[in-house]
């Protein structure tokens, strides 16, 4: 779990150019971390690539926060 969280955090920091300590479970990519809708599409693609999973569009829409992403990926890879 913590390994997944670290890897997701690293991607978020790299893609959105935000401080690591801002990337908390409740942080919304759009409202708190400065992403626009295109950034979130790219983030989901980066998660897919990193974890070798497929995140369907309807599932991607439910991933709004860092916590959502970690939860989804943890379940998808378990």
């Amino acid at each position, binding site marked *: 779990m913590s390994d997944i969280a670290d890897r997701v955090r690293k991607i978020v920091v790299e*893609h*959105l*150019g935000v401080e690591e300590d801002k990337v908390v479970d409740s942080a919304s990519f759009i409202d708190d971390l400065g992403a626009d809708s*295109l*950034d979130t*599409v*790219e983030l989901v*693609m980066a998660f*897919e*690539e990193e974890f070798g999973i*497929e995140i369907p569009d309807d599932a991607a829409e439910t991933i709004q926060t860092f916590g959502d992403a970690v939860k989804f990926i943890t379940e998808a890879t378990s």
Partner: protein
Amino acid sequence: MRRVVVTGLGMVTPLACGVEETWSRLLAGESGADTIKSFDASHLATTYACEIPRGDGSDGTFNPDDWLDKREQRKVDTFILYAMAAAEQAVRDANWKPEDEESRLRTGVMVGSGIGGLSTIAETAMLIKEKGPRRVSPFFIPGSLINLASGNISIRYGFKGPNHAVVTACSTGAHAIGDAARLIQWGDADVMLAGGSEAPISEIGIAGFNACKALSTKWGDEPKRASRPYDADRDGFVMGEGAGVVVLEEYEHARARGAKIYAEVLGYGLTGDAYHITAPSEDGEGGYRSMKAALERAGLEPSAVDYINAHGTSTMADTIELGAVERLLGEAAPKVTMSSTKSSIGHLLGAAGAVEAIFCVLAIRDQVAPPTINLDNPAVETPLDLAPNAPRKREIRVALSNSFGFGGTNASLVLGRVDG
């Protein structure tokens, strides 16, 4: 009609990043050509080009991080990066970064490109073949579209006036400046950022122009000698890359804020050959009419021209342009200096007209015509002074810049000194 003046300059060229650095190297007769470094071109018919010197930003090198946040760089093709760097230089030079809404509403952007995000399109096509459509970046389209140079520039500075982009191959930069000047004349804007940008040096770009038989191929051992307009040993153009952007401003607007005025856009002419997709008409009549129209707009006789920055690509077409210029000037030809700065920087395609218009502005400022380098063995006899291999110190009140593009599209700009 409202007058339009040039109040800011910016450029990224194969000689240097920056206007003054480029200009001093141009006058020194340097060449930006070299063996291609950005990718392995050894399997291509042409192995050399005029690439932007990349580095840490010192000594005229181009450091992308100086101009655009690293995270944003990933989202745009290189042609947009060059355009944004040139635009930043131009607005700094003009001291035009207004904070008030009215000024922003009255400032527009017209920065075009001949081909746009060619490398990004090619790379994405490869990616889709290897990994499928789900791997295509959401930034692929907005990072490749030609008008996203203008779009990104307007977003950065909050310029909310006309937002437009010219696409006329190698005439793009000249058309952009001419059209933007007209928007100011007509009152659509008081200030316009105008110019062109191009980043075509890639496997697909070189292979494509090689297939058109347009590029020089024979000078692989001595690339700096490859671009040689009017010379008997020329064998095609040398591809360049980069961007040129000017700040154009309504004369009274510039005066009122005490802006530095480099020159005035006196005339602009544009015509079509209606002849061939890549070759100019052999009698050069399209270029002739373009120059003539620009001078008529300026209210000047051909004899008023002191300096011409030629299209002069180092192809067989050089002599066609030369013939048209001789016909235009008639008996005034012997007192005119005409040079092709493509001999130094190569052919920047959609950026060429903008960068070359800036060279005309600097020629007027410094009263010196830049040289045509590598002109060792002229293929032609002409009464014109082609400034072979050395700059020409001389009076320059009026300069004319020519740009001709695939599709038979021609543009000429007339720029003049502003006294007082």
